């Protein structure tokens, strides 16, 4: 068996005396769907920031396909297939959905360096962008300005931008944040439908979604990984219950003790 798609070794970060990441060791085997959970302020987004290079770790290493990428700037990690989405939409308000995704495709194919030829000389890039949007049910609104899209559509556009880079590892930071329940189910169905070539780690607060879509759950508390394991173990783990006590997750957890669904 080949090595993990993504691994961290002893990853640590602190701001002054505030430790936001402490000796984090995680491994994502190729093609898995992992969830990253934990209470607010547990350091989940910080971990994604560290992995993608938005933050420099104080210590530790990050490996993508067994290659040490700790020193690479964010855009080069993206070029190697390590891509994220954002908890708060970070889009291009005055570009249309199609333009935004075409932009991301062109950056990948390096057409974006070409300033002496017009964009219509790149029909493959445009078609690919359109196909990505259609697959995420955004085809009908692809000529709308991003700022005019409904919120749920903007969340999908975040994912479309990430897909345009052809990720190997996709880190989704609360992809359904702020999206109504029915729509978040659809959104996760889209994520579940992604190619098995793509390794996915997602942050999510809704335990039902976590237990439905993740094959393994990593629980973070106070900047450290508390425990990780398959959903049914996590659901019954006394430590996890202690952390979540008072938030009444137990019922939800119990309801999903059966084997997680694949595909």
């Amino acid at each position: 068996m080949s090595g993990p798609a993504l691994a961290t070794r002893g990853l640590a970060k602190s701001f002054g005396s505030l430790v936001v990441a402490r000796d984090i060791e995680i491994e994502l085997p190729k093609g898995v769907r992992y969830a990253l959970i934990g209470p607010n302020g547990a350091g989940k987004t910080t971990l994604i920031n560290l992995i993608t290079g938005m933050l420099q770790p104080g210590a530790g290493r990050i490996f993508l396909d067994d290659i040490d990428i700790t020193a690479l700037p964010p855009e080069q990690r993206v070029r190697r297939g390590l891509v994220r989405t954002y908890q708060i939409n970070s889009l291009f308000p005055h570009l249309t959905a199609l333009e935004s995704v075409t932009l991301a495709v062109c950056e990948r194919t390096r057409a974006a360096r070409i300033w002496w030829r017009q964009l219509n000389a790149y029909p493959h890039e445009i078609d690919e962008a359109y196909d990505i949007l259609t697959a995420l049910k955004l085809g009908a609104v692809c000529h709308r300005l991003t700022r005019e899209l409904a919120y749920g559509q903007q969340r999908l556009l975040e994912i479309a931008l990430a897909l345009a880079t052809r990720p190997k590892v996709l880190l989704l930071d609360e992809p359904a944040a702020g999206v109504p329940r029915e729509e978040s189910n659809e959104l996760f169905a889209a994520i579940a439908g992604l190619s098995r070539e793509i390794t996915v780690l997602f942050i999510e607060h809704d335990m039902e979604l976590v237990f439905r879509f993740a094959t393994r759950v990593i629980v973070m508390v106070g900047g450290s990984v508390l425990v990780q394991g398959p959903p049914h173990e996590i659901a019954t783990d006394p430590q996890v219950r202690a952390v979540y006590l008072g938030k009444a997750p137990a019922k939800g957890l119990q309801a999903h003790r059966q084997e997680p669904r694949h595909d």
Partner: protein
Amino acid sequence: MALSESAASPRLYLQAQTRWRPAEIVFWLATLLPYVLFPNYLSLASQIAIAGLFALSLDLILGYAGIVSLGHAAFFGVGAYTAGLLSKYGWGEPLTGLAAAALAAGIVGYATSFVICRFRHLALIMLTLGFGLLLAELANTLGWLTGGMDGLQGIHTWKLLGIFRFDLYGRAAYAYALAVLFVLFLFARRLIHSPFGLSLRGIRENFVRMPGIGAPSRAHIRTIYTIAAALAGVAGALLAQTTETVSLDSLGFERSAEVVVMLVLGGTGRLYGGLVGAIVYMIARDQFSGIVPQYWYFWIGILLVAVVMFLPNGILGGLAKLSSRWSRS
């Protein structure tokens, strides 16, 4: 929006955006009117064409990549002195003079772009301002070369293409400036409709997001900054060649500020904003300074305040809004 969105294929839609609009064709035809209507104002017309090219070059970095510069005249000046010096020391051929100016300004732009691409916002404004002041002072100090305060004298521009003499009435000068402006406008138009142009808009819209889609934003910024510098250099060279003089104010702070004002008046990020801004600004200056020479900045001040307050996207932005309201009703 009425245009059936899903029906139009994505390729066709993008192609339609690069198509020439009737208003554009009318605009360019109208640039020939001064020959018929205002034959006495041809030298003003060529000043406007030059200012328009200069503002267009600023639009590429300010309007498309969101790089606010208060030192853009540095490149204008480098271009002007390059063409001027070349002519003074024996090579007065205009077209090669332009090429040399573009090259020299492009090199200076490329060199400074390595610093420029690392900063945003206020720091960037101060940096460009600083570079501009540095260069202006350098030109002042090198008086033996630049003529210092007296300006560069002894420039003689040869016949255009070996045929057309630059006459006193500015007939050839305007044709020359206008033709160069038009060719470089076509170049800029092509550039902003290229994949690279799309990336620039991405940088303007959300600079922080660009690394997340694997974009080398800094490399993009270096490229456009170099190109914009070269275009500004051509504008400077045009002024040097058509007026046969170069003065220190060609790279002074005032000229840097002036070009930002022109672009803001016309509207940023619209290609034509700089051209419209140059027309309005230069004509206003000509008229106002005819009335009360000392106070013409007062009127420009009022114009600027009024436009920024009531037409936040400039004159062209206001017109676009008006026409979309028109077509809806």
